[in-house]
């Protein structure tokens, strides 16, 4: 018993000393909240790659901390607050479901700056940032329609939120320019990361005749299933070619590093302010993996389209946009307004499905 007491006393002293030395350092502390494990090879992995890029660039001026596997339920508010209490002055919360918790903690800690990925609620100390992933989806739609023999695409959806809906619509608008009768089968798995469910969905889609699989979930499971079955697939969030060397056509890769570096620099210079950032291919927040496993003409089409989107001469949601009901959606100035894309809650014509719960 005396030994345990001695150990406890020693622990108290040791941690006391630890805290003291930590507060003595005056590096800017930057915190990250991750949805999945950093080894998910998708969404969270890419955010962590962004953090590592940040450390590489500014490592002598900052100290980063992350919490992984933070569920979007009741625990996330505590996790965010823990980071704020630990002295982090800039905190990135990297999933949609952290929106309300981030907002709550931001109100409690007015001197801490928060950055929430993919949400729409902001405050004077809370910014939002996201990528225009639909630009990449448009290119994938073209490739998919060119490569599909059955004329049926398989799409694994996570949650029917606007970001995902706009991805499906962009894919189909592009695919219809190649094959007006193209079909898409959609399965909602209601999770961002669950390799088992994602694999099951991919199998079901292939059984329903889909020969090109795309996904809005975070793991390479769908790619692996497509590879086993000899079908084609797109990666998601990160480069997934090693999971399907003969399967991956391209991948929409999230490139958060430059943004994280820019925001942390602003924080270091005292110039941080609450903003809404929505960048795409042009700003390189969204990057396409090399175009592989396709004939040269398809590759050229993809590259030309990518260049056109970057140059601003092509917009995936150019007018007119026809909804599922056959009516034209309000659209002016040549393409859908950003707000309409950010709040998208309808399918375009040609999608033979219903948005869940709508």
């Amino acid at each position, binding site marked *: 018993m005396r030994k345990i007491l001695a150990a406890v006393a020693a622990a108290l002293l040791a941690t006391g000393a630890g805290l003291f030395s930590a507060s003595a350092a005056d590096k800017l502390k930057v915190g990250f909240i991750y949805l999945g494990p950093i080894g998910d090879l998708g969404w969270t992995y890419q955010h962590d790659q962004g953090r590592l890029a940040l450390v590489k660039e500014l490592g002598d001026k900052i100290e980063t901390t992350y919490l*992984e596997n933070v*569920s*979007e339920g009741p625990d996330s508010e505590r996790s965010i607050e823990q980071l704020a209490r*630990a002295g982090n002055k800039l905190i990135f919360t990297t999933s949609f479901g952290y929106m309300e918790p981030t907002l709550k903690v931001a109100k409690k800690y007015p001197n801490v700056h928060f950055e929430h990925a993919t949400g729409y609620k902001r405050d004077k100390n809370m910014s939002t940032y996201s990528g225009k992933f639909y630009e990449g989806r448009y290119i994938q739609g073209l490739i998919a329609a060119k490569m599909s023999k059955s004329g049926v695409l398989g799409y694994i959806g996570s949650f029917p939120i606007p970001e995902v809906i706009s991805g499906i619509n962009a894919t189909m608008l592009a695919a219809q320019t190649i094959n007006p009768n193209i079909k898409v089968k959609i399965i909602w798995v209601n999770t961002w990361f669950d390799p088992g469910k994602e694999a099951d969905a991919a199998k079901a889609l292939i059984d329903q005749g889909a020969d090109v699989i795309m996904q809005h979930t975070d793991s390479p499971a769908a790619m692996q299933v497509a590879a086993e079955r000899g079908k084609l697939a797109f990666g998601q969030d990160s480069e997934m070619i090693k999971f399907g060397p003969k399967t991956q056509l391209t991948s929409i890769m999230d490139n958060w590093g430059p943004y994280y570096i820019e925001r942390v620099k602003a924080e270091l210079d005292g110039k941080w302010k609450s903003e809404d950032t929505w960048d795409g291919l042009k700003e390189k927040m969204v990057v396409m993996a090399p175009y592989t496993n396709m004939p040269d003409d398809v590759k050229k089409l993809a590259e030309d389209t990518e260049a056109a989107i970057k140059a601003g001469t092509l917009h995936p949601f150019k007018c007119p946009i026809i909804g599922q009901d056959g009516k034209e959606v309000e659209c002016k100035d040549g393409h859908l307004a950003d707000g309409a894309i950010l709040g998208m809650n309808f399918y375009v014509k040609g999608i033979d499905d219903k948005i869940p719960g709508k």
Partner: protein
Amino acid sequence: MQLVLEKRAERSTGIALVSPLIAIALTLVTMSILFAILGKNPIAALGVYFIDPLTDSYSLQEIAVKATPLVMIAIGLSLCYLANAWNIGAEGQFLMGAVAGSWLAVKTQGTDAGHWVLPAMLLLGAIAGALYALIPALCKVRFGASEILTSLMLVYVADLLLDYLVRGPWRDPKGFNFPTTAEFDPVATVPVLIEGGRLHFGSIIALAVVAAGAVLLGRTIKGFEIRVVGAAPRAARFGGFNANQLVLVTFAISGALAGLAGIIEVAGPIGHLQPGISPGYGFTAIIVAFLGRLNPVGILIAGLFLALTFIGGEQAQIAMKIPLDVTKVFQGILLFYVLACDSLILYRFRFISASPKVQSGAH
């Protein structure tokens, strides 16, 4: 010489008291080794896990918030387990309570409904949890169906019902299709006890539940009945106790407590109904119940201790960059040692010589 495990003639009360302490000591030693292998200072790491969270009001509050549902559910489960009724589906009863209470919150949203809303929600949550728990209990009593299987399977039913509701009829119209209800109105929210903190009135209810559990088991005939039916079914039958009725009663109580915990969690720390409201509280509570030796005060301590490992684990991630998985290993090791040490209550080690001496000349 040979080492054998030998059954004791009776329970060793001395070992029963020190066994949790031995288990904790062994856990600390094992974790220290693990930390050392990871290249972390074991003393500092254990300090972050166990001491730091106890040193400030914020962490103490968070421990209470995390322990509240665990303790409430575990108290109910302990009654079931003492009576030999195996309710494994507290998670489902938790969800059903949350759903039933949220129904009122959603229906009164934006109206000028008064302060009766929250009490009514809590009542609805408890009733729904109890009714939901009675399904497997009735199946057992009436048809002899295994309550272990039926109560467990009903968890998934509750999970899918909640999922359907927040994706469909109850979805926040301004929520961009994200599966969640709108934030509850203030009258439908469990009040916070300390301004700026997260400690809420539910923790006081949990303490009241602990007290009620202690009184029920220690001072009432019902409590005696529960113990006797569980410990000595034959004696209970001779004593005229109705085991079937007791299955219904204990299931109803534990369902009600789980349901109450569910609606308190939703109307308290979360503030709206969404999928994933429970990180497995209903299952973790089973561990808490046994860690607390099916004793109300023991359960309170076990719940707080398990909550401490969660909060400490998070702080260890921040302060010492110790991966989350280590916290899970930690909890697993603790349970392992607790169960291992418990076997010493009923058994003891004894050395016996390998070759029994041949007795001679005693014919």
